[in-house]
């Protein structure tokens, strides 16, 4: 399905570029605005999601009706109270990768800004989808967890390929994975959202599960990407 992304939060874009509050010259500011518009014109945000009951083993989560097994304690903790999950994937499409690549060879600063814009665009699309899923759960009197992606915590990135195969992302939204389990198009998000009959008690800090936890400049600055 298509997802509408009509605007991008400039503060978020600046943050992903390591902005620390210095004065932004007016010409740079207008360049950023132009990049935001160009990104919005180029992205084709699309999502696919499927709902599955889960089964819990001693050291993993089984996605019922598929052969996908999510190993590790992180995902178990994340899905502590859940008995179902949504698996989902969102991408802003291949055109965005080419836009960034072209800009990087023509005017690198534009490439860097566009890269940040696209990163925020896919996060925005994922947020929108998550909100939609939250509303669906709410109508059923249920609750959802935050997003948890392959590669977070001790959930290996290697589950990515099977994860995307189950969602048929290659055919449905043009999203594939490389031999090293990197997603293509690069501006894509795949994640698991738990569906819980009870309110999620443990306050979930998305940083806990993030692979960039130890090196993230945003986290160190107290302004993590998830706000």
């Amino acid at each position: 399905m298509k997802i509408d992304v009509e605007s991008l939060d400039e503060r978020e874009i600046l943050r992903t570029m390591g902005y620390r509050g210095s004065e932004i010259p007016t010409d740079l500011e207008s360049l950023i605005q132009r990049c935001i518009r160009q990104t919005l014109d180029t992205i084709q945000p699309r999502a696919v999601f499927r709902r599955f009951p889960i089964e819990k083993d001693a050291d993993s989560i089984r996605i019922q009706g598929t052969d996908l097994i999510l190993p590790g304690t992180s995902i178990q903790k994340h899905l502590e109270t859940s008995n179902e999950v949504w698996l989902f994937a969102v991408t802003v499409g291949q055109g965005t990768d080419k836009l960034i690549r072209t800009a990087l060879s023509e005017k690198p600063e534009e490439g860097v800004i566009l890269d940040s814009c696209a990163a925020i665009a896919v996060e925005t699309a994922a947020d929108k989808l998550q909100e939609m899923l939250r509303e669906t759960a709410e109508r059923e009197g249920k609750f959802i967890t935050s997003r948890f992606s392959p590669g977070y915590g001790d959930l290996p990135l290697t589950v990515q390929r099977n994860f995307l195969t189950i969602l048929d992302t290659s055919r449905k939204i043009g999203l594939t994975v490389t031999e090293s389990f990197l997603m293509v198009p690069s501006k894509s998000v795949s994640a698991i959202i738990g569906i819980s009959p009870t309110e999620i008690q443990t306050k979930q800090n998305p940083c806990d599960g993030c692979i960039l936890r130890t090196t993230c400049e945003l986290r160190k600055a107290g302004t993590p990407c998830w706000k």
Partner: protein
Amino acid sequence: MLEMKNKITLLDGAFGTMLQQKGLLTATVPEANNLTHPEIITEIHREYIRSGAEIIYASTFGVNRYKLEGTSYSVSQLVEAAVKNAQMARDAENPQVKIALDCGPIGKMMKPNGDMSFEEAYQIFEEIVSAGEQAGVDLIVFETFTDLAEMKAGILAAKEHTNLPIFASMSFEANGRTFAGVPISAAALTLSGLGVSAVGINCSLGPEQILPLAAELAKWTNLPILIKPNAGLPNPETDQYEITPEEFAEITARFADLGAVFIGGCCGTTPQYISALRDRLSGKRPAARQAVHRTALCSAERTVEIDEVRIVGERINPTGKKRFKTALAEHDIAYILTQALEQTAAGAEILDVNVGLPGLEEAAVMAEVVEAIQSVSNVPLQIDSGDPKTIEAALRIYNGKALVNSVNGEDRNLETLLPIVRKYGAAVIGLTLDENGLPQTAEERVRIAEKIIRKAGEYGIPKEDVIIDCLTLTVSAQQEQAMETLKAVRMVKEHFGVKTVLGVSNISFGLPDRETINTAFLTLALGQGLDLPIINPNVRSMTGAVDAFKVLSGQDKNSERYISIHNQIQSEKPVVPDGGSVSSDSSLEYAIANGLRQIAAEATIQLLKTMEPAEIIDQILIPTLEKAGTRFEKGEIFLPQLIQSAGAAQAGFEEIRKTMTRSSQSDANLSKGKIVLATVKGDIHDIGKNIVKVVLENSGYQIIDLGKDVPVEVVRQAVLRENVKLVGLSALMTTTVKNMAETIRDLKNHSECRIMVGGAVLTKDYALSIGADYFAKDAKAAMDIAKKVFEE
């Protein structure tokens, strides 16, 4: 064999949907059902045949080496079983039914977006199509493709390894493009050129949404058209398709009115849909289609029709350009890319690509340059070479429909090159010269043009794909020839109705103020009907002449294009820098600190009058950029500003290089040292490496950029060959850091070089633990490390 005159041939419907209904879609490899449940598969085929399907697709859609990885199945095993099941159904129901090998996308993305090479895709397809022919299919269907290059690899594999007819079908979104951005026109031009038996559209949308797309397809091809729509659009919550067999049949039958001859169903359709379709189509004949005669070229994302004057950019050519020769010799692909993008921005709609330089392996370099340009640009390319190997190497990997520059009227030349042009479905330029040399009259040129057009026709190349070059000769040497050339342009157009091309700039060779002569000649030639002027689009008077001609000839309706371009030109103030802020300070220091390219270039030109290049570099360029690095470190400026500063420094360096090339000085001794940069094997996220490159390059180092997904041995070879002291490696993901470790081990075993590493998941401790000498957390850190290493 497959297409019946004036008759619609019914195809089958979805297979996955049927498997799902029978509860067999849970397996990771749905095609394994061919072995585990052959009777059910055969029954599904039989149901489709009973519903009226005359061509059935064997259940082989996802059978390929990549998707079968880690399973116990082989490609030939599943293809054989699937074809056997289809044959059983055919034999039981109707021996007239034809069986297709169904071949879907591999499931991996091609380079440059992904990590699959053209050759790898080709080999994967080769295995499938060979197995299909062996198993006895009647035809091969490539369907649901969204990447034109991947499909081209499949078609070439099928043409080169089987004798079967090929159907080629792509999936489009409602906006008329595939996920990879391929418009219908580009798909039609490219696939028709490759010599398939039918082109089509399947999946992704319902019949209603595909109708306008099919109408567009019919405007771009003369081939039979194939349509397999989904049963409407799926409900995202339930994943169920939502139109009934009757609704589906009612709309789908309308494809016959567009002239489609192969019609069936894709996802969500069942035998009920196909039989409803049969009923609707009974007695209906496909509408007669109008023949298409368009001269058009395309990349995967953009079609350029030669229905008005189109500028061909001539700058990607080493002839007479020292800077370009150096770039080619040093393998500086980035420089070539800037030449491509600059011309496109200036108005070129097609780019000529010539990399002929003695001592270089032309075919390999051409293929590499074509691939690199296509990775950043969507402009169709003109492959400029006389060498058949080079032309073939380029056409093979070219994504889209290219123009070959050129063949001439010599028999041997035509017999060698035309088959290559035909095989890859390119268009071709015919130079009006032959065994007898340069013709002296317009009439002789016309005679040679006639021969080229006729010969091309004999090889199956239609005349709309032949563009005639009436040869621009140097007016200072053969003054009377200018008018003969112009006369020939008119005659060729009138006699044969073909498009024409001219290399314009050659006219003024040997004369002062060449631009004046070039502009006048261009204007005269346009008046005679020139379609493709090959010019330097960076010269404003030349593109201006084209813009003006389009107004005067009525090609530019209501002068809209002219007004929009030339209003902008008029409003551009002369000394406004890139960003827009005007300043009275025009020093190089100020320009670099504020990232002003234009001012930096101008300031450098001024400084070169009084200072030595090395002084400018050591006293101003590098220290100012270092200062910007320090401000970046302190958070006084942020990343885009640091890069802007590096860009301004680059503008300064470029002026210095130009001056030195003009005075034939080598700029080698200006370099502070060579650094190899690479994003390691398996990793395709190279933005960090690219940022480091921009900054280091403009800090005075010579950068050998090996790109992304670089094999271990390629890094080693570059380091040893160039005797490099410092290597920078980047890796973004935990999964690729192990390849970084492997690259480091290999380098340490074979050389003395120092290694710095960077990447989002790395820490200093970890970097050192895998053997790196330095950890560069950002571009500034890389500058500091380089300085330290080279000052030791």
